[in-house]
Each structure stands twice: as C-alpha cells, then as structure tokens.
C-alpha cells in the first residue's frame, strides 16, 4: 500500500506511520522539520517500510501545497491512503483576545486542511480510488469555553469532510473523519493527565482499523462517542454556564 502522511512529526502520525511501516507499506512523509523527518524516515525503514520518502513543507504556506502534493504522488506512484495529521493546540485565553493569533490557529487547524483537501480531492479523482483520512477532534463537536477557537477550526474541517464524502462517493474515494479525545502526546504536555487520556499508539490502531473498514466518523477511543453524545444533548441554557 502507498501511504501519504501530512504532518508526519505529530505523535499520532508517527504511531500510525509505524503501524503502516510494519505492514511493509511505502510511505511519503510531509512535515516542517527536516531533521525530524530524516530521523522518522530511518525509523520507519528499519521497522519494515518498503520505501520512505519525504518533503519539507510549512503547511501554512498554502501556495506550496499543490506542488508538494504533486511531487508526493509522483514519488509514491499514486496514493492509496492520505492521512492529514497536523495541528496545534492554542492557549484559548490568548487567542480569543488576539485576532491575529486566532487567525493563525484557524489557518493551521482549519484552512490549511481545506487547501490540502482541495488538491487531494483532485488528485484522487484522477486515480479514481483511495481513502482520505483526516484527524479532527472531539473539540469540534460543540463549542466549549476552554477551547472554542481550536474547536471551531476542527468543526470547519468536519463539516467540509461530510460534504466532500458525498461528492467523492461516485469516484470510489472514501473519506474518514477521525475524532480523537484526549491524547497524551508532546502537544498536550502542559495538561495534567487522568483516566480519559489515551496514548498515540491506541489512537493509531483505531485509525488503521477504521481506514481498513471504511468507517465514516470515528471517535478514538470509541467511548468518546458516548461522552460527546451526552455533551451534545445538554440544553443550551445549561451548557452556556458550563466551564469544562
């Protein structure tokens, strides 16, 4: 299988890439830091990947998306699975008072993904097959006080994916929306961890499984579907008073 991973240096991406490497897949990695990409590429090769290539890209430079994706497709010779993993977790207090920073975060977590999806959709339609999987977040399910800027960007992506899924259906292209809950990774280093936190490896297993099965919207781990259902049904006059 040929797998393209965007935002490859994130903890979830790394764990997922290792899973595909152990299956003997060919991988192309896209991320910002070349040093880290080189380390990850040799790690994946030793773990069994049949071929690993990479390109360096700052994903906030939208203008370069098309070129980088084209070279990824030609290096891999077509893509069976594209996985978009990049993201950043902003400090809510700062971003809600500073539009410039809010815009930057929405660009990283939302707009850049839309740009990538536009290019990917065109490429996948050409080859008439494949799966596009995107890591969004349970934070996108309902705007909550502690992280609604991040949540708004993620829900933008989730809504976009719902529409795109229908559009691409006739082209034999499948879309998976993966919504992880709390993940114990370097991105969340500043938070105290509790029993609801999962490791990137657990999320990665769920991603690989849901891509194989052709799932649509996936909560990782699965119990987040129940938690978010409960969060969703809280009446707004109560919800607006909740600070969690």
């Amino acid at each position: 299988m040929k797998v393209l991973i965007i935002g490859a240096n994130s903890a979830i991406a790394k764990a997922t890439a290792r899973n595909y490497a152990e299956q003997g897949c060919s991988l192309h990695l896209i991320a910002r830091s070349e040093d880290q990409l080189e380390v990850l590429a040799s790690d994946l090769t030793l773990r069994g990947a049949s071929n690993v290539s990479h390109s360096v890209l700052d994903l906030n430079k939208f203008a370069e998306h098309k070129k980088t994706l084209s070279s990824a497709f030609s290096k891999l010779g077509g893509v069976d699975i594209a996985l978009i993993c990049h993201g950043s977790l902003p400090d809510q207090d700062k971003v809600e008072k500073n539009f410039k920073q809010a815009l930057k975060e929405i660009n990283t977590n939302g707009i850049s993904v839309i740009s990538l999806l536009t290019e990917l959709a065109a490429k996948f339609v050409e080859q008439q097959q494949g799966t596009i999987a995107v890591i969004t977040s349970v934070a996108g399910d309902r705007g909550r006080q502690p992280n609604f800027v991040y949540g708004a960007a993620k829900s933008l992506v989730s809504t976009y994916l719902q529409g795109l899924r229908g559009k691409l259906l006739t082209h034999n292209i499948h879309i998976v929306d993966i919504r992880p809950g709390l993940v114990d990774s370097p991105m969340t280093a500043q938070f105290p961890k509790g029993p609801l936190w999962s490791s990137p490896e657990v999320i990665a297993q769920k991603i690989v499984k849901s891509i194989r099965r052709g799932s649509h919207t996936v909560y990782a781990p699965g119990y987040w579907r129940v938690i978010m259902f409960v969060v969703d049904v809280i009446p707004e006059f109560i919800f607006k008073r909740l600070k969690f």
Partner: protein
Amino acid sequence: MEAMGWGRYPKTTADLIQPADSETLQKFISSQKKSASCIGRGSGRSYGDSALSGQLISSRFLDNFLELDEQQKILRCGAGVTLGDILKVCIPRGLFLPVLPGTKAVSVAGAIAADVHGKNHHLDGSFCTYVKKISLVLASGELVNCSEQENSELFRATCGGMGLTGVIVEASLSLDSIASSYIDQRSLVANDLAECFEHIQNNADSKYSVAWLDCLARGKNLGRSVLYLGEHAASKNRKTDTLYRERSGLGVPFSTPSFLLNKTTMSLFNASYFGAQKRKKSSTTLSCDNYFFPLDSIRNWNRLYGTNGFLQYQFVLPSDSAFEGITSVLEKVSEKGKGSFLSVLKKFGEANENLLSFPKPGYTLTLDFKNEAALFPLLEELDRIVLAHDGRLYLAKDARMSEEVFKASYPNWERFMTIKKKYDPSNRFASLQSTRLGLTQ
C-alpha cells in the same frame, strides 16, 4: 500524577516530563532550578523506587530506531525503544539481542541503567557488555557520548548507575546472529536444593539456564525445583525460523484482592505446578516469547498482588557460600510461609567493571512477597543472611534496603560517588532510592 514502580510499592506523586527529542530535554534540564530533583524513567519496570522522584523524565517519545548496520551487527536507537521493539526489527533479519531479561517491555535506557541480566549470564554477562556507546544529557544540560574508550569513567558509572549520572537519550548495541528464534528447551526436575545445584553445575555450558523453585516447600523438599535449559534451535530452513509472532495474552484488568494470595493458595499452586512439571515431557521447542517472557503474556500481572503491591527480593551470593546461604533464606521464608509463586534461581558468571552493577560470580535467587507490614522484619532478617554470606541485593528490584546494607555490599559506591559529584555536583538526578541509600541528599 501518582507514580509507582512495577511492584506498586511505594507510591508517590510526581510530575511527568515527556520530551519529544533530546533538544527539548536539554532545554528542560537547563531551565530547571538546581534544587529540583529528577530521574529518568523508561517503561516503569523497575520494581521499587529507583525510578521515582519529584520529576520523572520519560523516554517514551525518544523511541526512534536510528541506524542498523547489519554487517557489523550494531543497532543505534533512542532510549525509549523497548527490547520487544528491537526483537521485532531484528529477528526477521536473523539478529538477536545478546541479553534478554524476563520482560521485553523494558526500555533500552532502563536496561542500561539497571545493567539487566538474562538466563545466559553465566556465559555471556549482562546487558551493558553489549552496549557500545551511550549518549546522555548531563545535569548541566550538555549532551555527551560515553563508551569504553570515550569518557570511560562516566560510562562505567552510567552502566548500572540507576539513572543517577544523567538521562540516557540514545545508545548503540551490538547484536548476535541467530539461525532461528526458536528455543529448544530441556527441563530437569530436582527434588531438593542440592540436586538443583548439581543440575546447574552439570549443565554449565548450556546457553540459557534458569530454575523455578518452590520456595514454600519445607523439610526434605526444601528447594525442590525445575531447571529449564535452552539452546537456540537449529534452522529448519523455513520461513518461520526468523518470523517473530507476538503473543497477545490475557490481562489483569484491576487489582485483585490480595488475600487470595496466601500461604495455602500459594503452597497449593506451587505443589501442583511442581507436580505438573514432573510429569511433563522434558524436551520441547518454544517460541522466543514463550521461552524468554512467559509473564508478559499476562498483562499487568503485578495487579495480582492487590492494591498494596508486592516486593521482589533478589540477591546474589558467591559460589562457595551460595548453597548454605540460600538454604538459610529458604528455611526462613518457608517457615514464615511468606513467599509466593515466583522464585527463580540462576547462576551468574563473571562480574563486569561497572561500578553499581548487580551481578557477580555465584548464584542469584529471586523471591516475590505480597506487601504487608509483617514482611519487613523478615526481609531485614534475610538482609543479614545475605550480608553474612558476602552477597548483595539488586537495585532494580529494591524498595526498602537500608543505607548500611547497601554500602556494605556494593564496595564501589565511593568511586561511584566521586564520579557522580563530578558530573552532577548539586544532585539534580536523584531517586527516592538513591536518597534512601545515601547516594544523594
């Protein structure tokens, strides 16, 4: 967060730091106050308090494979890579780790810090014998390399040094070649301790050798045991020779009530296990996982001892006093009826030059005890027997040894302190254990 070792005793609260790479770690170490003590932590498989401190620096994201030279058989990898990960990568290439402890969950850095040993110590020595180079972050935040040639005193203090010299971020290991990952196992039943020692002696050239021992048997049955000998199987020229299949076994989902493990149930278990082994076929071929890591198939088996946890007591006695000393220990333990189902006897070969490494020539016995108040006086009695026979305890298992016992049994502790003071003058790297043992303040 609440932190504990594999024995689930003692427990403490600590901050967990999980650096994504060595630069982040260096920045962290340099930015902290000198008074804040921290210690490296790998997979959390040391039993007692050696990986407990105010701040725990986890190696879990330092888990990249960096380079494998298949000709020279040298692997360079991150500190958090586990031995199980290494086997997964190496076995299909016909390579193997020269030393494997009883679990594959340990990290490379943990294996170095405790200088772990395996079932082949009598022939091949301990884990650090095969460590070619270590990169570690010092208390100053500086990243340095050490090996037998480069910064050799730091190397000797870091191998087996329980993380007290710095945080290991990377290591190079030399590997062995194998024709097959399967192990031909032969088992020999011994009806008492003397017979067990005889079997071990008579099979001293066997590659792997370890005895399970019924520590609750008394009188003429004292020390009845089964010796398991192993050799790498010859290649059968099949694809499966170097196929590594991981076992996924059962787990223990929560702590079971500890009263289930008592003198009666344990004696029954041990007697029936011994009886079953006696009737079993004495030769068989096992997969690598089944031979080396039988307990890994029961995930979280440490929960079987209840919420208070357990203590593992492992000591080594020199060959000439071992029989007498181990007899006294077993008499004491079986008299009190305190032991449990995991007792392991094995012969050690030559010691190495690492300052705090545990193994030395002789015999090592491992006993598990459920944690209870009555246990501690018994263990102190055992300490006295071990000291009287010129033995010592394994730091990776210890949770309660006194400073006096430690200093009397590890003769190189002062040389270790000199090196520790040179590289870490303000004791940045300290564990609950190192403070208890008088190695740090």
